[in-house]
């Protein structure tokens, strides 16, 4: 595996040495330092202790120690679009992005190092699928469908190696200092057991035979893991990822985000919000909530027991009782993620950072 990393960088290194002939790649180009990086397209925001850290286009990762008033740009060795980042503790954080990039920080987001990229992931995937295929094949009592599907996945994985590191990672989570999961497009699913030193591909362990995009992975207050995906895909694990099962939903669109307020809410396309409740018999039912908006909700947060939703077209909604109602002035451009600090919601998206005072007023 490290051999592959080596050969990959050798390829680019060679290109660099011949300099004029072939351009450098965004996997090895550092992010350009911007004068106003907080105005970039930003997709994700998280907190490292008191510090806010956000990431987005062209490898831009920014941090603020003064409640989002001023921002500095971190040192980032790649310039691919950062799709998600979060912190395990005040110092240790992870970011994922396009081209299968996984970045890590040990200084609370000031500087980042590349831990993995799509070229390595492609090979990990082939290795894992090959091993699994051979294992299943050797079992004798073969599930023909399973084997066939593994075969297809293996073929796809081999083609992907040819095509290069093109699959984006979309989210990452660490359950403890060692165990972490990263999810991404086309059913990409990676696990680490050693704090990110090595990763394995475990996409075949998920009930996702169509390799649907996996948009989000979260851990509920009860400690359950949820993976939200395309086409109404919701996968749950009650044992920290030991086993995974699919949850049937009355909804076939993509899910982008989830939040726990009085109950668990799932957010999807065009204003879709599903609320988990129990019927009289005690079994789980999902109710569609009308939020009075057709904006796709990208992220949500609970502040002082009140849930806020943000989404496309600058949608910003507040939960009032059972309903969601527009909160303050609607933004002009799409919001992608939300974090809170003090009395402020810090929202990032197309125009960069917006700071919303929960007591009224935006600046």
């Amino acid at each position, binding site marked *: 595996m490290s051999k592959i990393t080596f050969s990959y960088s050798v390829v680019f290194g060679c290109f660099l040495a011949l300099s*004029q*002939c*072939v*351009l*450098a*790649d*965004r996997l090895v*180009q550092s992010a*350009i*330092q*911007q*004068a*106003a990086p907080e*105005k*970039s*397209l930003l*997709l994700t925001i998280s907190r490292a202790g008191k510090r806010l850290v956000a990431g987005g*286009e*062209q490898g831009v990762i920014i941090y603020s120690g003064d409640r989002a008033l001023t921002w500095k740009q971190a040192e980032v060795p790649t*310039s*691919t*679009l950062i*799709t*998600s980042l979060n912190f395990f503790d005040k110092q240790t954080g992870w970011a994922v992005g*396009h*081209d299968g990039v996984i970045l890590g920080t040990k200084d609370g987001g000031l500087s980042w190092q590349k831990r993995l990229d*799509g070229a390595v992931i492609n090979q990990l995937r082939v290795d894992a699928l090959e091993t699994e295929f051979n294992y299943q094949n050797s079992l004798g009592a073969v599930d023909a469908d399973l084997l066939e599907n593994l075969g297809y996945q293996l073929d796809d994985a081999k083609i992907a190696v040819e*095509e*290069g*590191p*093109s699959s*984006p990672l*979309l989210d990452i989570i660490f359950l403890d200092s060692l165990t972490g999961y990263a999810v991404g497009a086309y059913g990409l699913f990676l696990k680490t057991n050693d704090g990110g030193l090595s990763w394995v591909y475990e996409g075949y362990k998920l009930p996702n035979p169509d390799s649907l*995009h996996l*948009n989000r992975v979260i851990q509920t207050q009860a400690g359950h893991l949820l993976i939200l995906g*395309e086409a109404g895909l919701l996968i749950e694990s009650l044992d920290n990822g030991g086993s995974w099962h699919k949850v049937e939903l009355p909804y*076939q*669109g*993509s899910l*982008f985000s989830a939040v726990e307020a009085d109950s668990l809410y799932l957010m999807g*396309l*065009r204003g879709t919000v599903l609320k988990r409740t129990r019927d009289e018999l005690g079994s789980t039912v999902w109710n569609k909530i009308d939020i009075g908006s057709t904006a*796709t909700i*990208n992220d949500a947060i609970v502040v002082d027991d009140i849930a806020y939703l943000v989404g*496309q077209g600058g949608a910003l909604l507040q939960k009032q009782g059972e309903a969601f109602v527009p909160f303050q002035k609607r933004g002009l451009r*799409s919001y*992608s993620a939300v974090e809170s600090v003090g009395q402020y919601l810090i929202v990032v*998206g*197309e125009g960069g950072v917006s700071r919303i005072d929960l007591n009224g007023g935006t600046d």
Partner: protein
Amino acid sequence: MKRLSSILLWPINTSEKLAERVLFSYRKLLLVGFLIATLFFTWQASQIRPDASFVKMIPAQHPFVENYMRYKDDLAGLGNSIRVVVAAKNGDIFSAEFQSTLKSVTDELFFIPGVDRSALKSIWTPNVRWTEVTEDGFVGGPVIPAKYDGSKESLELVRTNILRSGQVGILVGNDFRSAMVQVPLFDKDPETGEKLDYKEFSALLEKLVRDKYSSENISIHITGFAKIVGDLIDGAVEVALFFAIAFVVTMVLLYLYSGSVMGTIIPLICSLAAVIWQLGVLNLLGYGIDPYSMLVPFLVFAIAVSHGVQIVNTITLESATNGADKLQAAKHAFKTIYIPGLTALISDGIGFITLMVIEIQVIQDLAVAASIGVAVIILTNLMLLPLLMSYFGVGRNAITKAKKGIEKKDSHWHLLSVFATQKGAIVAVVIAICLAVLGIYGSKGLQIGDLDVGAPELREDSRYNLDNSFITANYSTSSDVFVVMVSTPKEHCSRYETLALVDRFQFYLRNVSGVQSSISLVDVSERVTAGLNEGSLKWRSVIRNQYVINASLSYVPAGLMNSSCSLLPVIIFLDDHKAETLKAVTVAVDGFVAQYETDTIKFNMAAGKAGFEAATNEVIEMAQYEMLIWVYSVVSFLCLLTFRSLRTVVCIIAPLILTSILCQALMAKLGIGVKVATLPVIALGVGIGVDYGIYIYSKMQTYLQKGHSLAEAYLETLQSTGKSVAFTGLTLAIGVVLWTFSPIKFQADMGVLLTFMFIWNMLGALILLPAIARLLHPKINE
């Protein structure tokens, strides 16, 4: 030196005798010849056509323009396009009446010759679409639904579609009270190969769009290069009226000055003939008249009158002092004036020719036109004029008046002759040096390029600039567009490597101050990729998978790539077009090129209005000093040849340099930048300004040679020619001062600066020249 100058001046000296013999021996024959020539040139001049082209106003040899020319055919609408905005005065665009007007305007523009119909865009054209993601997939359609019927429901649908199309701020005003039609133009009709006729195109726009659709509910706003040129041509025609005014004023002044009917009419006729000849020759050589060369006839007329005045003045004096008859007086005047006149005109002409170092066609055309002008003045005013005077004379009244003047030995000229005394000279020179220092200090703020917003060619409150500020206020795309043309091998423009690099380039540009935003094929690919992934922002990136990229580029708006996919323009919108801003952009692009350009992916500057302005600024910045060096070297050399003394050259040139410095300070004060229009001013000012010095010094020299002291010689000079020199300054200033009222801003700028230069040069020649002569020749005839 003496030898060299006598060799070089031999043709002038010899031609003087030859010309005199021929001229006064075959007077009738020559008059008939002049008459026939004038009739011929009148016919030619009447054929001359207004002419203005985009390409002529930009520096054709500059690499930016060469790059643009190379890719011109692939850059639909980026070189030359106009924007027509239909605005609702009351209410918004969501009314049946407004939409039907917008549709009619779109249709009307579609059929105007010269329009690139396939790239024409408004919300009514089928190439403008909306797209949206639903659970069922990707849907889209034209903004105006097929079933549109003007009903409330269909207007509501139009509103929804506009929001979904992302055209707010582009084709629809940010306040939904206006909508735009983008009209790309062909410079040359691809079918007929005919050049776009800007005048006619602009007139059609007015007639078929503005006049027809403006009403109490609708206003029409039009911007774009073609409209600027159209307005310039219209404005230039107004300038013709100024010519008439200048003519009448000059006539009155001439009569007051000479006191002679013939001494008024004949110089005027000859000067008019010079203008007619100049225009005729231009037409014969295939030149048209553009808003810049429009001003040359004024200059030619003024220069011609000023030389005519010298001759009439000499004739009058000769008749008055020596009682010479008409023919003798005319012959004498010819002999006296021919050499300084010819020298002056030749230095004018060569001064103008130095403008050729500026590689911008309109300036070169101006140089040619002005040089032809001074060349014909040699014939009309140095030859035809004395010839005519030899028949008509100046008249008894004028001679009597002149006699009285000589007897009075007056008066106010004594005042000026103070400057030929030691004390006066020191005072004058010290003041001049102080002025020069102040001038140099004041010209620190002098800037290159256009400094005003909108179309700097036109006045701030012109309709064009009002239209422009309307559009700037209501739309997100600035009109200051700088285009970098990224070239690749064929079929490579949409390759991942190309798009990723351009993506980085655009991101890099955001750091450049003055850059508002940029757009290219990359933005299309990123947005559509996100769209194909349910609108998720997490997919707004160039995907490293050619199939995904190709799918994202299945529909590309016109002008973002060429048909062979070897070119993708990056369109950069700037805050303004100040030289600083443009410089920052070119420096930044160069920086990126140095670091990232490969053998196959090239970043070529520059097209777009701001791109051409950047090129023009670079050329002007370089040419500015080159031109000054040339014009001063040439004029100094000619003076050296004529007077064979370095000190004399200093006497004549130093006042001109002072004027040039003060002129630059004035430009800085008035906020006039060094640009296509103002760069020629200094060459024109110096070229013409040197005339005064030559006339005064040559006259003074004759008195010095007679043994007068400098002060005496100077007083004599003032009494004989001082008045005519002052008068010359006045006529020249009258010729140009009226331009100040031109609707065209740069003509007004030229008017202010030239008036200033003509008057200061005159004062310099009258005050500073003798003062410097005093200090440089301390022992002369003491």
